């Protein structure tokens, strides 16, 4: 920190002192709270993780099913997510939509989310309702019961979700286009929301088969976090989940992405794109792999805050972009590190690409500074403090470590792994992964002329 007091006098001197104090390369002096997690597995394979915190009388319950869009079969993209919606459409003892209306009626909150690797359901409720919530979650695991009419109606809702999230907003298609070009084989090439045609092709028989295969105790992790008594909670879990039959072996035969051995390029031009955008992606290892720690540190240095390298170069100094970032999408199978620049209007995408590549080259040519390394680690530590304030945030971290990272102990241990990262590690991973032959370059550009008759999709993916 090199703040210089422009105004003489005591106040100015004090300011400079304080600033110097804060930014002179010091690591933060706080420790994120440790999460003590109780763990057991029922005879039917259900994994149960308990985290007690009595500060507020609420409890967060989560069920993680280890199934996501990467498990969908060809022609059924979007199905895992459609299925998630159907989990609110009734089971033997809970009517369609009753799950939602009951939780709302007690002041609770709930939701569910489907990504590439898992489907997560959660409820946060006053803690005296824990037993009821466990009973409800067990009921839809045991006895999902969706009518044809509810299936059809909810499929329309999911199609509206796709329109709202992907088709209507500017840059809504960016990730879809980027992933379709980055992956050739692995199902990560398709967004969890899927395609309209595949959603239309889904049937109620698909729903039954999916439930029978993936919605079984041996594919589920139950996390309970907050104000409860562990002995009592364990008895309830046994009572409501214990008798649900164990399922078969879970299919895990997902096609692997072959190593990329040459740069790929694509250009997407459409009327709804308001500014030129440049995206560079590189394949990186799976979440939890050792090199991800150094890549995360690199991500902080590249793009966390207005003092970060990419912001400073592309947005602040050169003024060619409105935003710039470089970060990893961490996934259970090998993921991607992507660099994105949303350019100022009229800027050439080639120039944006050059500037991103120049920053990548810098990361490969010289070690990051000691101050940058401290900054990244400070940000990661602070992120663990700010990102784990609520019982829901803590349960998220616990579920992610257990299901996606495959190592529950990482929920407390990850910080130490980040602390070990050296400047040499960052240099090494930048060289190993940010190679041109491991790169996909996508330009997303506004249409320059009035819309043509043909749909914009037709131009998708055409090579430069």
């Amino acid at each position: 920190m090199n703040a210089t007091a422009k105004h003489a006098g005591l106040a100015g001197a004090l300011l400079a002192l304080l600033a110097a104090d804060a930014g002179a390369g010091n690591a933060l002096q706080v420790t994120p709270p440790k999460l003590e997690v109780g763990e057991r597995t029922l005879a039917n394979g259900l994994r149960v993780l308990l985290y007690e915190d009595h500060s507020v009388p609420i409890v967060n319950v989560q069920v993680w099913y280890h199934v996501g869009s990467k498990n969908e079969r060809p022609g059924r993209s979007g199905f895992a997510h459609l299925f998630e919606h159907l989990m609110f459409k009734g089971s033997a003892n809970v009517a369609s939509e009753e799950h939602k209306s009951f939780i709302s009626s007690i002041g609770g909150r709930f939701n569910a989310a489907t990504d590439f690797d898992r489907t997560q359901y959660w409820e946060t409720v006053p803690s005296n309702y824990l037993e009821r919530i466990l009973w409800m979650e067990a009921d839809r695991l045991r006895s999902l019961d969706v009518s044809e009419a509810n299936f059809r109606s909810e499929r329309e809702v999911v199609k509206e979700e796709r329109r709202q999230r992907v088709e209507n907003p500017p840059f809504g298609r960016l990730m879809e286009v980027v992933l379709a070009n980055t992956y050739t084989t692995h199902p990560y090439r398709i967004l969890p929301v899927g395609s309209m045609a595949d959603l239309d092709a889904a049937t109620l028989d698909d729903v039954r088969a999916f439930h029978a295969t993936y919605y079984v105790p041996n594919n589920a992790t139950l996390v309970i976090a907050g104000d409860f008594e562990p002995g009592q909670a364990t008895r309830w879990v046994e009572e409501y989940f214990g008798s649900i039959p164990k399922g078969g072996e879970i299919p895990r035969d997902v096609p692997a992405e072959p190593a990329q051995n040459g740069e790929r390029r694509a250009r997407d031009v459409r009327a709804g794109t308001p500014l030129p955008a440049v995206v560079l992606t590189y394949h990186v290892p799976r979440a939890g792999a050792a090199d991800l720690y150094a890549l995360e540190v690199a991500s902080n240095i590249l793009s966390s805050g207005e003092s970060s390298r990419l912001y400073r170069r592309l947005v602040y100094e050169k003024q060619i972009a409105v935003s710039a970032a470089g970060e990893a999408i961490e996934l259970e199978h090998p993921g991607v590190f992507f660099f994105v620049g949303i350019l100022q209007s009229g800027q050439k995408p080639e120039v944006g690409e050059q500037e991103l590549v120049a920053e990548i080259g810098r990361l490969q040519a010289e070690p990051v500074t000691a101050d940058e390394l401290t900054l990244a680690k400070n940000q990661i530590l602070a992120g663990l403090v700010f990102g784990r304030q609520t019982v829901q945030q803590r349960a998220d971290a616990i579920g992610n470590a257990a299901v996606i990272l495959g190592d529950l102990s990482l929920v407390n241990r990850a910080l130490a792994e980040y602390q070990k990262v050296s400047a040499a590690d960052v240099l090494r991973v930048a060289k190993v992964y940010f190679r041109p032959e491991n790169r996909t370059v996508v330009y997303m550009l506004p249409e320059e002329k009035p819309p043509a008759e043909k749909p914009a999709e037709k131009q998708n993916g055409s090579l430069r």
Partner: protein
Amino acid sequence: MSAPRSAATSRSPRRAVAAALLLAAAGQVHADSNAAKVAGPQPGPAREVRFPAFEEQTLPNGLRVVVVQQHEQPLVSLQLLVKAGKSFEPAGKQGLAKATAALLTQGTATRAAQQVAAAIDFVGGTLSTGASVEAGFASIATTSDQLDLAFELLADVILHPSFPQDEIDRWRKQTLDGLRIKSKTAGYLANTAFLRTLFGEHPYGRPADGTAESLAALSREDFVAFHRERYVAGQALIAVVGDVTPADAFARVRRAFAGWAQGTPVEVPAVSTAASSARRILVIDKPDAAQTEIRLGQTAIAFRDPDLYVAEVYNSLVGKSSSARLNEELRVRRGLTYGASSSFTEPSQPGWFVASTSTKTASTVTAVTVALDVLGGLSTEAVPAAELASAKTFITGALPLEIETAAGTAGKVLEAMRAGYGRDFLEHYNEHLSGVTAVDLQRFARERMHPDTMTVVLVGNAAAFAQELREKLGAFETVPAAKLDFLRSDLRTAETDPAPPPH
């Protein structure tokens, strides 16, 4: 297979047998939906929840300070609010409030913009500023070992911003590109057009982001003057939240802000809430839209309105939860949307009610008529007791969730203090809300809500629904999205002006 425990104690033997059969059949996936259902376990005794303690002081310069302690996490945040939102912009300076707030962090008397950024980034904290309808706000959050820095930086950006010309130029260029993105975002166009249409020339109707034209006209003098006049201690509140003691927090606020000028009070002009005589429908034509963004609403209540609690329960019934009527009718029953919701915005003067949803182009008119019918139903029929109870508990039962973090508590305290309410209001809020009756709701729906003349804004592919709209709802105005001008009362660029892009 065991039946649910507490349900078993409260159930007749006959139903227990039926339930056991149901559970046994469950593996077959499609049980008969009409079969008897087992009741779920009943709740245990609830732990009492009270609004958390907080402490208040007022500095001699009028700055009101509140401290909410929370020592479980090693973090602290400072949240400052001041009457410097868009409602206090001088006439013709649309966008000035947000711009001034954005520029607070872009250079001070002793720090360049990049030094402000470096200071907060280095400690992994966040520093953000912004402006809403009435408030300018700034907040900083750091780990608790950075308390000195947190106070120092917040006070610096609030008291000593320097508005350097080169940062103004940077800001303008970036913000104009931000407006290009917004101009293609249907939800932004719908929200902005809705307020503009509803409030006309009243400040609540202003486009908070300004327009390319209004931003181009803002000068450094405007920022300096707005900051000098509106960022004043007598019109500000600050909350210190987290791992800090009240004595320390008050002492630090006094040290950091004692020299802040008191300034002069300011109020928002009165709003007329007379119902319009006819429905106004505005269609913004966006031919590339995959969905139509729908807004419908009216002017409504101020925060200090005696009907505040009735309005909140009304909203809970209509559109605050996924089980509320709008979502029930539009999403659950008809599959027309991913979501439908509503809200009241309750500022110092009567604000607005808006219902929002989006649907595929073909179902635009159906969605509008269904939403209007939902609102109309509240005045013609009394709300069933169970539904009313749920709607109230959706709000009151959420109190423990809202106060889980100190920042959540502070947000509620600041909201109350802005309106001139204090501890009493917060401690009795749930009691007052629980007292709302079906009779209150029907009176409110009849006297204060006007679905028949609500303003409707649609952003979508007009050609595909114009005829049906005319048949079902009558006349409407259309403005092409490319010709929108939020500075003009007809929302349309003057035909003679080709409105060249800024660069």
